[in-house]
């Protein structure tokens, strides 16, 4: 694919390209705090990049402001570190102009859900062909520790010494309400799972929203520890698989079933319960997706994996189709004719 071939659909290179993780590591020194969860997200992102078959030059990472916003500097692709909350707007314009590119947006809980909430909503509902990866550490890290829109109610931070009085928002519920065609959740320390999730997002056509639960060891250490620590994670999270019953637990003995329209956690073997009684995950079912965005620790295990994946025409595809149709029906625009259209008269 050449630089001037701007209007082809987003496709990998015709010839298979053999790239490795190292090809995606830029020459810039990584400057997150030691121990930050962002290192793992960067590493898994670099690891999955070769899978998509795109040459490096056809991949663009766009970010907003916050610790997450630095990621594009560390990717050896094209990158644009924009302004707070606005990365989806740049991605929308870029993708409209250049459908041939693979575009990623890197954002955080404050960037995406607070200052950029409007853009997140609208880029998702338009099904812009962009993968949005939101690092959720439930705190403002770069500004040194204020409450974020995902901080738990009553959280004591520098900006809320008496505890917050704001209810948190569920990022996945927002994405679902905005009709995102791909919605998933993973965790910075679940490296294999995170790779698999990013891989699925990368292969999706349309708006993909991935929430990555991430630890900020400086300002919100242990943000997700209660259900992500190695000893408890299998009992306190549930890994979703399309078409499979919702089973979890170290001993694979717990599951989720519907009681009426309410989900409940049950133990297999108790009262004669078997796998057949459990809810089967369906990535295309909006009601299951809704339920999965609503359940969370401690009442429920935290769902991780792909919650929703459906197919719809993308924004850039429809925009460019309209142009192709207009050219087909009216012919490529003739500037001279356009300027001389309407009522004209001639002065001799």
């Amino acid at each position, binding site marked *: 694919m050449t630089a001037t071939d701007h209007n082809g659909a987003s496709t990998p290179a015709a010839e298979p390209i053999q790239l490795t993780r190292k090809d995606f590591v830029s020459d810039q020194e990584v400057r997150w705090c030691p121990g930050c969860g962002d290192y793992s997200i960067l590493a898994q992102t670099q690891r999955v990049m070769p899978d998509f078959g795109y040459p490096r030059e056809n991949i663009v990472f766009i970010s907003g402001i916050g610790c997450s916003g630095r990621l594009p500097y560390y990717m050896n692709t094209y990158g644009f*570190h924009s302004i707070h909350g606005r990365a989806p707007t*740049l991605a929308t314009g870029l993708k409209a102009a250049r459908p041939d590119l693979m575009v990623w947006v890197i954002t955080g809980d404050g960037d995406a859900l607070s200052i950029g909430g409007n853009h997140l909503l609208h880029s998702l509902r338009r099904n812009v062909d962009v993968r949005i990866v939101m690092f959720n550490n439930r705190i403002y890290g770069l500004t040194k520790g204020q409450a974020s829109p995902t901080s738990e109610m009553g959280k004591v931070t520098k900006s809320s010494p008496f505890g917050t009085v704001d209810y948190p928002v569920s990022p996945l519920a927002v994405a679902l309400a905005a009709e995102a065609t791909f919605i998933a959740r993973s965790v910075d320390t679940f490296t294999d799972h995170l790779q698999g999730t990013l891989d699925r997002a990368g292969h999706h056509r349309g708006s993909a929203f991935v929430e990555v639960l991430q630890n900020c060891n400086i300002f919100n250490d242990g943000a997700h520890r209660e259900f992500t620590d190695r000893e408890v994670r299998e009992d306190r999270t549930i890994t979703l698989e399309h078409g499979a019953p919702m089973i979890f637990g170290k001993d694979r003995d717990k599951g989720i079933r519907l009681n009426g329209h309410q989900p409940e956690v049950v133990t297999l073997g108790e009262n004669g319960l078997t796998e057949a009684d459990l809810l089967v995950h369906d990535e295309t079912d909006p009601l299951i997706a809704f339920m999965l965005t609503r359940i969370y620790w401690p009442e429920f295990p935290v769902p991780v994996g792909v919650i929703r994946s459906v197919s719809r025409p993308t924004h850039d595809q429809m925009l460019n189709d309209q142009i192709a149709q207009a050219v087909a029906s009216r012919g490529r625009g003739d500037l001279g004719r356009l300027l001389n259209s309407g009522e004209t008269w001639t002065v001799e």
Partner: protein
Amino acid sequence: MSTETKTARGAVKTRELDRVTIRFAGDSGDGMQLTGTQFTRTAAAFGNDISTFPDFPAEIRAPAGSLPGVSGFQLSFSSSDIHTPGDEPDVLVAMNPAALKANLGELPQGGALIVNEDAFTSQNLAKVGYIANPLTDGSLSQWHVFNVPISTLNSRALKGLGLTNKQVDLTKNFFALGLMFWLYERDMGPTLAWIEDKFSKRPEIAEGNRRALRAGYNFGETTEIFHERYIVPPAQLERGTYRNITGNEATALGFVAASQLAGRDLFYGSYPITPASDILHQLAGYKNFGVKTFQAEDEIAAVGAAIGASYGGASGLTASSGPGLALKAEAMGLAVMVELPLVVVDVQRAGPSTGMPTKTEQGDLLQVLFGRNGESPLVVLAPATPGECFEYAVEAVRIATKFMTPVVYLSDAFLANGAEPWRIPALEDLPPIVTVNRTEKDGFFPYARDPQTLARPWALPGTPGLEHRIGGLEKADISGNVSYDPENHHRMTELRQAKGDRVAADIPPLEVHGPAQGDLLVLGWGSTYGAIRSAVERLQAGGASVAHAHLRYLNPMPANTGEVLRSYRRVLVPELNLGQLQLLVRGRYLVDAIGYHRVRGKPFRIAELEQEARRQLAELGVAAGSASR
């Protein structure tokens, strides 16, 4: 100038006039804008020079018959070159008491007043506070009043068509238009053709409008209340093919032309806002020119998407009005930092805040120059006439792509909605726009600059070997890496500023209309061009030493600006704000410029500028000759 001839009907004479100004005024639901536009098209196609001033409320349908609901359309048509829609109307067509009350103050003594007397009911009179009916109480004796029962005559003409009373009422503006066509000996053909086209799917509505138009015309012909008809011969315009054009239309066409000249698809990100929305409506229809329009979720998304498109190699454009510009400020600063081409159109309206959305003002000059954090210079252009909106759209894209810089294009509500005949340029006369994308890998640095223009390379995603990162953080000179180095920040700040000097060397000098040196220079910018030019020409005709200069480039200003300003004993800067250009030229050139400021939401009148210039000349002890008209 007037020549009298007898027509077939003995009593009616035809008088030839050089120029006529008509104002149509009615309820905002009365179709006054359409009526004015139809008369304008007809006069333009006939070959008159024209200038128009649509003046309407922001409310789509304010309460019927109320003063806030009055909508007006003033047009001036002439057999000679004119620059403004006229200070005051010669003829006022008032469709109801509110329209009369709102506009009568501007109708000069002896002016003609044509009223729809059917609308002067006690209820309508009471709505606007008339205690007695002005049509019968003798209070209009200083004007030439023609009482016409427009509603009655019109509904009689449409009888038998099976239209509802409301549908019939909606056509009465065409009765008034028909009457004006008769009075000024105009051909109904263009309007009949428009009706045919517009209502092709609703034949009964088409017939209603045709009948209304003809009934108005025939009323003029058969009634004996008019003793004269008027003819305004065609103007001697420069040779060429013309069309009637508003500023917003010319703006939209200009950006399409620029995208074609540059060989770049136009990407237009926009959020609806008065008075800029028409640009979106128009561009949305040009898909076969590769124009991509994007109605964004807000002003910030509109500019963000335009920056994203420019980054990808398209011609990125966004437009708004003052309130929207305020929201775009941070993203415009990003465009300054990442040095990508971007054009931001500001169709100014009266502010602050929501202000008066449909009314004109020049209040955003300092906002677009300085309304961003940090030292954030960008290029600012301002077309002076509706037709120039085309030329400066092309110029904006040329500068943005040549210098890799954001450019602000300042229009305003008066330019946007006002119309004039526009000589359609030949394609070969349009300037070429040469744009280059870096593909050479060797020696590539994101912030290495062209020595001539100081532009950095436009390296598009998709170009192998040029993978790089840009962003809003300060960049190291040449390498483009993030840098907090103190000396580097100082150097980069100066480099961004120095680009302006390179632009200044690339634009034409400031031209002066009148003596190259003398007593008084009147300096303007934007849509005040016509009123200033006309006032200066009147003074020049009286022998005064007065010149007019009009800035199309507000940042940077043409290189000779200081020299021009210093060539006159006094500099007068009329603006529709409280002295923004005045502040700039004082600061930049140490010239004691004097301001003349009006913020009424309306364009300047020629007479007030002429009077102010006279006052300045008198202070200088110079006689300015007698007032001319």
